[in-house]
């Protein structure tokens, strides 16, 4: 730590206590948005302050931390958050999904299946899923209290009318534990099924909007869907990762700036690197054997 003395994990103990209490409430009522006193952080609101405050409140000296942004460990946002947390905690950091105790993420859930005991902290820009259909906060609170989600359903209906399918690509509305409609944060549809009956604890923090919510392990998390217009994940059939050849991961489309050729790559860089290294090994092995 530099010349300034901060308490472990930057936040003062009273703040951590408040956030932990709010987290307990959030876990006790899956999908319910708990208001919390979002503190001023050394990054701008809307850049992950909600997730950051949760991470700093739950982290202990022995926890190994991983931070990703859209699946990538090395993007600017992830790097800056990692440096900051490393500075104020001195904890060990990792890129490995399976090695981490806590993973803070923006807009993705890792490809590798997370286990019991791991915590995934998601950064949330807009916690209120009903905001699409209802501008008033008082009204959305009433709607949640009465489980009145008709307007959200009509939103899906209108989508099918207009486009012949549900076109929501991220922030797909889910019902948690059959009770609360919830914004799963801007993860792609591809990641939504990973929330259902998971072994992992999911914590959601919206710093700007001052809300915390959670999905405890083994909770039903089901996407809103009509009986005859079901929820579908993104279709990557016929496409594979240029680096590791994966055909069952979430792929980002990009292009070669010289040749202009389009290609696809895993969005989860750690998953991709792990696969590439094992593939290289297996590729080398048969060659050596043939010699």
């Amino acid at each position, binding site marked *: 730590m530099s010349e300034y003395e901060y308490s472990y994990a930057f936040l003062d103990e009273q703040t951590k206590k408040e956030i932990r209490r709010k987290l307990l409430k959030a876990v006790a009522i899956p999908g319910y948005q708990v208001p919390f006193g979002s503190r001023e952080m050394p990054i701008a609101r809307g850049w992950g302050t909600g997730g950051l405050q949760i991470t700093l409140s739950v982290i202990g000296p022995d926890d190994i931390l991983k931070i990703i942004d859209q699946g990538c460990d090395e993007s600017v946002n992830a790097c800056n958050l990692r440096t900051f947390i490393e500075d104020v905690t001195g904890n060990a950091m990792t890129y490995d999904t399976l090695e981490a105790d806590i993973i803070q993420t923006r807009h993705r859930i890792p490809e590798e299946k997370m286990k019991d005991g791991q915590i995934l902290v998601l950064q949330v820009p807009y916690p209120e899923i009903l905001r699409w259909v209802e501008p008033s906060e008082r009204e959305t609170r009433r709607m949640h209290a*009465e*489980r*009145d989600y*008709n*307007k959200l*359903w*009509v939103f899906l*209906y*209108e989508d*099918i*009318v*207009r486009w012949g399918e549900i076109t929501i690509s991220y922030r797909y509305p889910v019902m948690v534990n059959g009770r609360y409609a919830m914004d799963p944060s801007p993860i792609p549809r591809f990641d939504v099924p990973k929330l259902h009956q998971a072994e992992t604890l999911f914590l959601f923090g919206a710093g700007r909007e001052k809300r915390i919510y959670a999905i405890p392990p083994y909770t039903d998390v089901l996407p809103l869907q*009509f*009986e*005859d*217009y079901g929820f579908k994940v993104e279709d990557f059939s016929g496409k594979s990762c240029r680096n590791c050849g994966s055909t069952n991961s979430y792929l980002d489309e990009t292009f070669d700036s010289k040749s202009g050729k389009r290609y696809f790559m895993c969005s989860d860089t750690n998953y991709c690197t792990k696969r590439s290294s094992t593939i290289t090994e297996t590729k080398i092995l048969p060659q050596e054997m043939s010699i």
Partner: protein
Amino acid sequence: MKARAKDNKEQALLRVRDLCKIYGKSCEQCVTLTGPDMGGNMCPKCGSIVACAEISFDINCGEIVGVVGESGSGKSTLIRLLHFDQSPFSGRAYLNSYENARTDLLNLSDQKKRWIRNHQFGIVYQNPYHGLRMNFSCGGNIAEKLIAADWYNYGNIRGRATELLLQTELPLSRIDDLPKYFSGGMQQRVQIAKALANNPPILLLDEVTTGLDVSVQAQILNLIRHIQRSLKISMLLVSHDFAVIRMLAQRTIVMKNGRIVESGLTDQIMEDPQHPYTQLLINSML
């Protein structure tokens, strides 16, 4: 004859007893110091407005009951109380199709009230902006009511919406258009289609033809009569216009200053009005 009357009484679909709504702080004498005999609905003691009081009536199955009175007589308040848009000061209401009329509707939790509103009631307001969401399509508005009544199959919702548009004589080609671009008469039809969507046993109509031109008025009234005959839905029809009441309602309640001053068969009231206010109303018909 007597047995039949008794049967009817048992079959009363909706029973309303002693309904009262007071705006303001209210005192013990509010109800006694207001009403048609006192010549107003503002309590001289505490200044509260008694919008309606001592309202009791029944609606039988398949019957249209008209409520007539000048503006400010408490007609719309009555309908809003029954639709749970506002909460009453006191009073009870029992619905035959909800727990065999054993439970007072006005005392239920908000969730249960919403369930009843979605499953048992349909409402058509005077102003379509109250009853419709103008930024949802016409079909979406009908879908909202159906989803509220637990329809989760897009095809079925679409089918039912189409059926309702045919029933209310709306062009099917407009199903995906926004009602804000519709004419007043068409908006009223969409409201009626929405209100009928889940086959409610009771339909509340609040000044449905007010503000429409005469030919459209006649069409809407015809439509309501047709619906009542074919679907046997009970209706509570509020209007300030005796002509509308005469055309549709079998029985009529006359209201003034928040009280019922006269009630009975519509024909009887038209031919032989007892209360001076009713006489005045009928004499002032064009």
